[in-house]
């Protein structure tokens, strides 16, 4: 049944990585991304590789699980590789078919950019795999809250995320039901060309939107009845606290970043 599909990729656990403060994990992820962009040559991917291996070991998730999260992007990955392979400028020609040339430089660039993509996705998915969506939206709200002075809607953004997460399973279930109901009236969602298929979605999408709006209206009223009046003066059940592990993780990551920068300067 659709309702049983787990949301997002979060895998519950109780490891050091799971217990890190979500705010800290978001910062670590940003630093990690910086590490990747500071890698200047394919060789130095050993640094983020080591970092990821340690983190995945600590989080109890296998490296294989992390690689799995790259799978949905395999076409983009192949495209990146091919484009860079054929269309980079270079002098050391390996293969020359006239209109297509493969050069050593092109090959290295292709490897470099593909690796960058793989490491980006694998690393950020470590964040979503070990942090519940709720904690993530809490962390984001807290991190962004200083921006409230410039009227940045940090609380509203986090509330929207929470509500979206809450209603995704409900709407998936509803879509499934409406689809079946229209199929019972002879609707065909599976055959025909692109235009015909797009048109066939109307009997599904219209009722789904109507229902989503009705739900939104109901929910707004229920929230008001429970005294919701924005982020002002609101307390939270979840209190975020930094611990010592957060400090160590931060130091380790900043260290990794520095090593990467120096490595890049040393081996141009």
């Amino acid at each position: 049944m659709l309702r049983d599909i787990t949301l997002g990729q979060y895998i519950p656990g109780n490891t050091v990585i799971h217990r890190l403060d979500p705010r800290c994990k978001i910062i670590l992820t940003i630093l990690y991304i910086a590490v990747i962009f500071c890698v200047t040559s394919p060789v130095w991917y050993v640094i983020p590789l080591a970092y990821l291996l340690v983190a995945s070991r600590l989080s109890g998730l296998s490296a294989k699980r992390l690689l799995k999260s790259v799978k949905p992007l395999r076409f983009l990955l192949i495209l990146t590789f091919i484009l860079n392979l054929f269309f980079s400028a270079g002098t050391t020609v390996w293969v020359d078919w006239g209109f297509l040339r493969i050069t050593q430089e092109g090959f290295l660039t292709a490897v470099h950019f593909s690796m960058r993509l793989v490491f980006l996705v694998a690393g950020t998915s470590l964040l979503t795999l070990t942090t519940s969506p709720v904690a993530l939206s809490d962390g984001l709200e807290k991190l962004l809250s200083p921006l409230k002075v410039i009227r940045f809607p940090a609380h509203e953004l986090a509330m929207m995320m929470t509500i979206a997460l809450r209603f995704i399973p409900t709407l998936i279930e509803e879509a499934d039901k409406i689809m079946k109901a229209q199929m019972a009236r002879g609707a065909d969602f599976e055959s025909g060309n692109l235009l015909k298929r797009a048109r066939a979605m109307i009997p599904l999408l219209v009722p789904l939107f109507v229902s989503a709006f009705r739900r939104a209206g109901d929910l707004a009223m229920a929230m008001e009845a429970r005294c919701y009046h924005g982020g002002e003066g609101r307390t939270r059940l979840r209190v975020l606290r930094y611990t010592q592990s957060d400090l160590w993780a931060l130091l380790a990551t900043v260290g990794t970043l520095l090593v990467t920068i120096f490595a890049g300067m040393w081996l141009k």
Partner: protein
Amino acid sequence: MPDKSDFYPMRTEDVCYQYDEEDVAAVDHVSLSVTKGSFVAVLGHNGSGKSTLAKLMNALYLPTEGRVLVCGLDTAQDEEVWHIRRHAGMVFQNPDNQIVANVVREDVAFGLENLGVPHEDMIPRIDAALAAVRMTERASFAPHMLSGGQKQRVAVAGVLAMQPEVMILDEATAMLDPAGRADVLATVRKLNREQGMTVIWITHFMEEAAVADRVVVLDKGKIALDGTPAAVFSQVEKVKALGLDVPPMAELAMRLNAGGLRLPDGILTVADMVKELKKALCPSK
């Protein structure tokens, strides 16, 4: 003289409400005082004005005429609106459309967070509310994994944690199956009996109204009948004319009396009927 609001946590005085696009009032001069600690069923068919009345009771709608007093506070006073909504907690019809958070426990916390209750005080209140609706074991569940009846119990807990004076349930069982309906009704009735919670139970199900202390029947926005379940449902023809069901046993009693038996008024259940038939048919037993 003791303050009236202590005795009647919910009072409406000649209250009217008219929707902008309609010509007739949805609620038409309703005066209703709900006694503290009582369980009052408001019964009516669709369009009788019962849901509008519910929304007038916690300032979601403001009266076009008359007043609504929640614990003595006039709902028309803008600055009191959060006090009023805290004191008059409301549970709605659709179980899916009133749970905000994606974990049961956090949804129960939602109202407390809005009220600015300190973190340390929240936890015992949430635990007590979850225990009162028997959802402690499912505190960490996602709402979409619960049955309709369980979702409504979570909604009840969310209101209960706010420690209201009155709980208004606006057709809270209309979308549930019979097991879920019985479950939610029993849970709320128990809160009423054990914690003295004042309950306003809005419904179109006669069986639910039959367990109340008092039944108020609405029709065309006006109070058509008001009394104990026995007194209201004995008026079989009148209740039917209002588009409502009567308990089958009340109807049978009326027909048997027309057929020559002498059964007293106020038979609502099978047990009542058995007892009275024994007396009527076998006086010696």
